[in-house]
């Protein structure tokens, strides 16, 4: 168990190399080894989606992925959504404008899922947005305002 492997990957645009146990979950690696605590862990069995990150541009549940599986890959977390000067991404601003978050715990994972929806389906309908976020649980909002935020962002991506 204790034998460690070297994991080398690009995290939010920066190359990172760290040793970790083969069993280390990607979520644990991101939060504890990299100190990027914006990615949250809700259920650790792949249902809630709070831990969703982008690995090579595709959403993955970081709680169902081993850190070593990300070796050589490109990882993007909620911290990587921010602009270089630390300001919010337009999608994040839409979340604030539409009150698409309350406690904010599911929000980082929800944002990563929505970023993928917007990239892959720039003309997504409300139903498609709902379908797209149905793997991310939010216990606060009832989802409607999240759908509003994403729909608004798709219409006005540069606001």
């Amino acid at each position, binding site marked *: 168990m204790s034998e460690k492997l070297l994991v080398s990957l690009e995290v939010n645009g920066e190359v990172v190399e760290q040793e970790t146990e083969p069993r280390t979950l990607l979520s644990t690696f991101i939060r504890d080894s990299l100190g990027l605590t914006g*990615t949250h862990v*809700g259920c650790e069995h792949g249902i809630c989606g709070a831990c969703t990150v982008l690995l090579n541009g595709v959403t993955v549940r970081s709680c169902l992925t081993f850190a070593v599986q990300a070796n050589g890959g490109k990882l993007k977390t909620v911290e990587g959504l921010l602009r270089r000067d630390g300001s919010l991404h337009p999608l994040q601003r839409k979340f*604030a404008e539409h009150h698409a*978050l*309350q406690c904010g715990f599911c929000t980082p994972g929800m944002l990563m899922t929505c970023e993928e929806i917007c990239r892959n389906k720039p003309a997504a309908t409300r139903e498609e947005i709902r379908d797209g976020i149905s793997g991310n649980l939010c216990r606060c909002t009832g989802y409607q305002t999240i759908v509003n935020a994403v729909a608004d962002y798709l219409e006005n991506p540069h606001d």
Partner: protein
Amino acid sequence: MTDTGARRWVGKSILRKEDPKLLAGKAKFVDDIQLPRMCHAATVSSIYAHAKILAVRCDAAKALPGVIAVVTGAEAAELSGPLPSRANPTVTQHCLAIDKVRYVGEPVVAVVAETRAIAEDAAALVEVDYEELPVVADMDAALEARGDAVLHPERGDTNVYTVVHRKWGEVDAAFANSAHIVKRMFRWPRVSAQPIETVGAVVEYEPATQHFFFYSNMSQQMMASGGLAAALKVRPSQLSFVPMYVGGSFGGKVGVYHVAILAAVLARICCRPVKFMEDRLEHLLNGNQHGSDRRYLAELAIDANGIFTGLRCDVVDDYGAYFHLALGAHGNAAAQITGPYRMTAVDYKVTAVATNKTQQGPYRGFGGEVANFVLERLVDAAARQLKADPFELRKRNFLRPDAFPYTTPTGNLYDSGDYEGVLDEAMRMAKIDDWKARKAKQRGNSKRLGIGVATVCERSVMNVTEFWFFEDKPLNPVSSSPESVSIRIDVQGVPIVTIYAPCWGNSPETLAAQLTAEHLCVDPSTIVVNYAGTDGGMLSKGPAGSRFTVMLAGAIEGACQALLAKVKAVAAHRWGCKEEDVAIDERGAFMTAGDGHVMTFAQIAEASYLYRLDFPKGDRFTTGLAASYTYDHPCATLPDPKTGDLGIFYPIVGHACHLVLAEVDTELATVRIVDYVAVHDVGQVVNPMTMDGQIRGGIAQGIGTVLLEKYEFDESGQALTGSLADYLIPTACEVPDIRVSHFTTPSPLTSLGIKGGGEGGRLASCPAITSAIDDALEDEGIFITELPVTPSRLFDLLRAPASDRATQESPAAPERPTAVEHH
């Protein structure tokens, strides 16, 4: 309707102050805390629902490299007493079970290691020998159980925690003289908050000063610190809570003491900071936070004119293995047991039983949502039985706007309302005739439409007497429910507001800024809001019972009045005028007469902080510009044990009407919500955007309760819902777009006329959605009496012989076993 016109900031949907850091992933939640030398705890949980612990063998776990400590229940008990409990006689619970386990998932042993993974490895090496005891897996078994099946034999040879039976008004006469009696058996399922963040704590113990530092998402930290300190056998002044962002609570994190206490015990044993985060399985099985689990035999007496004259409820509530909040959730239900209706007589009996399941805690509504469900179901059943229009029947029985202030049969006060106005607004928004036409068009098709209605009260601004007024000998008859705020205008004139409750996902920073801005006439974006830890020493109960906004508003008004008095005094002295001739607007202070001088807050602050000798001696001109204020309940009274009057404890009473258009697919046995209208009276709305968010979120949780969620157990007490793939929280596909509107009757009792609104979405949605389902199936004679209405349950109902459905109309109710009175 409302008088929002005069307000500068209250009533506006300003964007939230909380959001930038939450969106950036920078807000600190408890699991984000990393302290030097911090180690990690995992627990060994009971695999049996009821068993004696014969032996615990920890040697193999202790020998594992990286393990720091392995702690049994007996060892933990050397440093901690029983968990806080309100019941009398006490039901003893420890942070780790000692001699006996009482439900599957009860923590038995804790392991502390360098990493969570090692702690879990070691936990798997701990061996516990059990001797199984008879399992009490449901409420009927609990009523019968004796001997080894009794969970807490020290309280007597019974699993009945308590029986309370109260009557208010001439209830027996009301039933004897009634023209109609509507009687149904209802079953409310065991559901809970299940926030996306589980409960956790990081605790550091400083031996030199014998002080605990808590980083915890447990709610109501200030109120809890007394109980926690007692459990840790120290004084409250030896505990400090550091404020944290919390990933949702909905009541569920109010009473979860064992996590923080266990982390504290382990930190003390290890002399290192310890993090203990529940995993999802733990939160599902042993979170001490399952909600009400009730069966009602409920009856409504109705006179020849269709007027409701009396209500009888005989309730059995499956509280699980412990009873730490006593009958608080039934006290809550008593706040508005007669709902929005003129009804003067009530008979309420509750039998609280112990079973081998995790114990109850609060969940949005705290029992009030169950009472609303039962009453609205009875009204729907009455409409069917009397062949009356459900809207008209409700209107006929509503309290009229001139009835307020209204004293309920139990002694609670309703401050204001216009229930017919709310219902009319909802029917107008829904275009109810269109809905009816759509329903008629699909009648007889495999996909039917149904129209559901619920008109419910939302008692708000709790006072804590509800936790004990049903007790014969209350252990701790507390009656204070304070909220506090400190406001400082800094030397540059910037208001800095300190609040004493953490952010649970409500919007405390935004509301504090908005309310302060209203009084000080400044832009809320210029106001800084921060959180005090318990070291701050101000009293705060925090969010619970839809109280926080109202209580915060009262505290802020008090602090702002003190600040503005000082501001006016400073300006008046500078100008040599009377204080009455100084007023405040967005410029700062100005002279209402004469020269019309103006001083900005920056100038007044500068004078107050730096130029003491320009002002007269005495306390009025003490250096600085700051005020603190503690606001307690605006209108509460003690119960009167002699008369049975429960007193005023929930007098700020909002109202909601939910109308639901639902499609029932009779072939697939599924329910889809097609349209949803929610009209709420929450008094003056502070921020419509965040208020509507609370309402929609509550409705989503109601959808879960009605259609999806339930903790299931088998006959041996094994939990069958051990993951979020079994316990189904609504996703974006189950929650429709919801149209929300407001109909305002301001509270005459609160600052700015605000009423609480945090629970109304869930308080109204459960009966409304259910009502839509059986309205769609009226032709089949189906009337829903049990939740959740899952596809399999709906399938069974649809395929049941018509005669069985008919029995639901006038139930041959199963005889309720006689409760054993507890002495």
